[in-house]
C-alpha cells in the first residue's frame, strides 16, 4: 500500500491537476483509514468520499485547476460536515448529524480536497493526551503504548502515521501543536481570526482556532491560503486578505530569533538538546539570537484554566437534552431533563471543566477569578508586544517532554494541564504559532519545536519554520 508520508498535498494536487485520478488517490487513502490500527480514525466516509473524488475528477476534466485537487483529508470530529455525523467524541452528541457545514470544510472541498473520515479527539477538545474520547484512546503511531497528544490526537496520528497527508484540527491551548510535536508532524495554529470558526463546535471562543496538520511547511502554507479569509458567518474572523500559498526561502536571514532562558528549566534533556541544535541552525541560516523574557508567561496555565473553562461552561450549556443529542429516559420534570441528560452525556473531564468554569463565573467569584484572569491575559499580550519589538519570531520547545505513556497522567488533572505550559500563551495572545519536527529522543520518540510570531505574521512564521527544517 502506498504510504502518503512520501506524497505530500502539493504533489498529489499537481498530479491530479495534470490528469491523474483523484478517485484512485482517495481509494488508497480510504484503504489506509480502514486499516488504521491506532484508533485515529473513528468514522470512514467511503461512499461520500468516492462521490466527491469523482466530482473532483470531473471538475479537472472540465478544465479547472484546484489548489488541493484530490487531496484526502480527515476532519477532527468537532467540525460540521453537512449531512455527516459530528460528535466531539462525546456521548452527548451520539446520533447527531450536522445540518450545516463549517466554512473551513466548504473551503477545503471547493479547493478540491476530499474528506475521507472523522478523526478521534479528546471529548470536546478537553485533554492533552486523547484519553478522554468516548471512542477510546489513540495510540501514538511511533509507539503504540504512548499517547499521541491532544486534543487533536487522531488528526496528528493520521498525518504522522501516513493515513492522510492532511488533517484539520482545532487549537484552544495547544491542541494542534502539542500532538503534532508528540507524533512528529507539522501543526499550525494560525492567528486568531485568520480562519473562520463557523461550524466548529465551540470550546473557548476567544481562543479556538482551526489549523492544519501536514508533513511539509509548503503544505501548511498552501492549506492556510485556502482556509483563511473573512467570513460573514463568523464576526470574529479578520477582514483582511488571506496569506499567499508558497513559503519564502531564506526565512531566517537577517531575522532576530528570540528565545526564553526560563523555557529550558525542567526540560527533558533530549528536548533541550534539540532546542540547542535549532538555535545553531537558526544562526547558520543567518539569524541573530536574542535572549528575551515573557515575565507573565508563567501564569498562562492559570489564566487559561479560568478563561477557557468559563467560556466552555457557557458554550456547553446548549447541550440540554432538548434540542439535539442525548436525552435521559424517564425524567419527571424539565430540570431533570437538563441535569440528567448532561450528567449521563458528558465525560469526567468535561464535567470537571464545566464545574470549574461555572464556579469562576458565579456570583461572588467573578472578580476574583475571571476578571483577574482577563487582566493577567492583558499583561501576557503586552509581554509579547514588547518581545516582538526585540525579535521577529520566538523559538522554544512545544512540549516539556516527548510522548508519555497511556494512563500516566490521567489521575492528576493538574499535571495533565501543565503539559500545555508552552503552547497556551499563544492562544491567550491570539498570535500564530506552529510546531515543527526536530528529530527524536533516545527512544526514537519525536521532538517538536515551537515557533511564535506577531499577529498576522503567519507567512513569516512559516518561512522561519522552512529555514529551520531545511
Amino acid at each position: 500500500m502506498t504510504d502518503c508520508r512520501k506524497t505530500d498535498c502539493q504533489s498529489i494536487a499537481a498530479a491530479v491537476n495534470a490528469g491523474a485520478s483523484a478517485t484512485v488517490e482517495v481509494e488508497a487513502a480510504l484503504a489506509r483509514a480502514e486499516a488504521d490500527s491506532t484508533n485515529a480514525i473513528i468514522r470512514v466516509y467511503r461512499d461520500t468520499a468516492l462521490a466527491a473524488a469523482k466530482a473532483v475528477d470531473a471538475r479537472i476534466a472540465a478544465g479547472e485547476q484546484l489548489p488541493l485537487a484530490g487531496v484526502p483529508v480527515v476532519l477532527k470530529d468537532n467540525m460540521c460536515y453537512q449531512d455527516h455525523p459530528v460528535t466531539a467524541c462525546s456521548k452527548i452528541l451520539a446520533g447527531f448529524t450536522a445540518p450545516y457545514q463549517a466554512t473551513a470544510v466548504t473551503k477545503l472541498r471547493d479547493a478540491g480536497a476530499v474528506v475521507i473520515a472523522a478523526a478521534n479527539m479528546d471529548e470536546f477538545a478537553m485533554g492533552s493526551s486523547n484519553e478522554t474520547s468516548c471512542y477510546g484512546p489513540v495510540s501514538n503511531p511511533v509507539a503504540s503504548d504512548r499517547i499521541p497528544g491532544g486534543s487533536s490526537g487522531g488528526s496528528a496520528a493520521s498525518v504522522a502515521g501516513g493515513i492522510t497527508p492532511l488533517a484539520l484540527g482545532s487549537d484552544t491551548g495547544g491542541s494542534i501543536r502539542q500532538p503534532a510535536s508528540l507524533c512528529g508532524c507539522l501543526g499550525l495554529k494560525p492567528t486568531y481570526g485568520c480562519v473562520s470558526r463557523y461550524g466548529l463546535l465551540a470550546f473557548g471562543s476567544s481562543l479556538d482556532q482551526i489549523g492544519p496538520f501536514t508533513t511539509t511547511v509548503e503544505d501548511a502554507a498552501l492549506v492556510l491560503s485556502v482556509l483563511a479569509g473573512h467570513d460573514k458567518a463568523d464576526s470574529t474572523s479578520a477582514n483582511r486578505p488571506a496569506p499567499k500559498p508558497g513559503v519564502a526561502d531564506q526565512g531566517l536571514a537577517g531575522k532576530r530569533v528570540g528565545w526564553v532562558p526560563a523555557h529550558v528549566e525542567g526540560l527533558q534533556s533530549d528536548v533541550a538538546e534539540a532546542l540547542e541544535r535549532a538555535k545553531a541552525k537558526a544562526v547558520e541560516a543567518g539569524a541573530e539570537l536574542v535572549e528575551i523574557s515573557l515575565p507573565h508567561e508563567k501564569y498562562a496555565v492559570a489564566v487559561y484554566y479560568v478563561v477557557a473553562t468559563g467560556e466552555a461552561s457557557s458554550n456547553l450549556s446548549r447541550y440540554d437534552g432538548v434540542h439535539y443529542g442525548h436525552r435521559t429516559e424517564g425524567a419527571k420534570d424539565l430540570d431533570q431533563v437538563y441535569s440528567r441528560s448532561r450528567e449521563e452525556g458528558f465525560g469526567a473531564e468535561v464535567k470537571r471543566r464545566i464545574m470549574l468554569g461555572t464556579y469562576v463565573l458565579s456570583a461572588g467569584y467573578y472578580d476574583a477569578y475571571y476578571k483577574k484572569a482577563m487582566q493577567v491575559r492583558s499583561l501576557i499580550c503586552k509581554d509579547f508586544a514588547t518581545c516582538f519589538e526585540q525579535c521577529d519570531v520566538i523559538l522554544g520547545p512545544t512540549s516539556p517532554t516527548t510522548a508519555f505513556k497511556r494512563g500516566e497522567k490521567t489521575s492528576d488533572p493538574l499535571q495533565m494541564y501543565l503539559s500545555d505550559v508552552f503552547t497556551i500563551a499563544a492562544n491567550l495572545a491570539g498570535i500564530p504559532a506552529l510546531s515543527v519536527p526536530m528529530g527524536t529522543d533516545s527512544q526514537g520518540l519525536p521532538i517538536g519545536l515551537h515557533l511564535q510570531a506577531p499577529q498576522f505574521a503567519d507567512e513569516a512564521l512559516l518561512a522561519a519554520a522552512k529555514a529551520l527544517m531545511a
Partner: protein
Amino acid sequence: MALNEQTVRHVAHLARLDLSDDEVHAMTRELDAIVGYVEQLQEVDTTGVEAVANVAGLVNITRSDEPIEMLSHEQVLRNAPKANGEAFLVPKAVER
C-alpha cells in the same frame, strides 16, 4: 480558600449536572487543587490593568439587517430527541 462539598453541589446545580455523591467527593478534591493553583494569579499586580475583551482589537462588528436563508423547520427538528414535527417536546413545565 478551600472548596467544600456544599459549594460543589451548588455549582453543580447552576451547571445543571446531576452529579453522584462519588463524583461530588472526587470533584471537591480535584477542583480544590486546580483552584489552589489558580490562586497564584492573586500575586500579580493588576492595578489599572484593563481586562482584555478581544485580543484581535475588534470592536462592534455589525451587519445589515437583511433576512438570509436559514435552516428549515424540518432540518432543525431532525436531530431532536423528542419532537412532534412542529416543536421540541419536553415534560410539562407549567401547572395550569
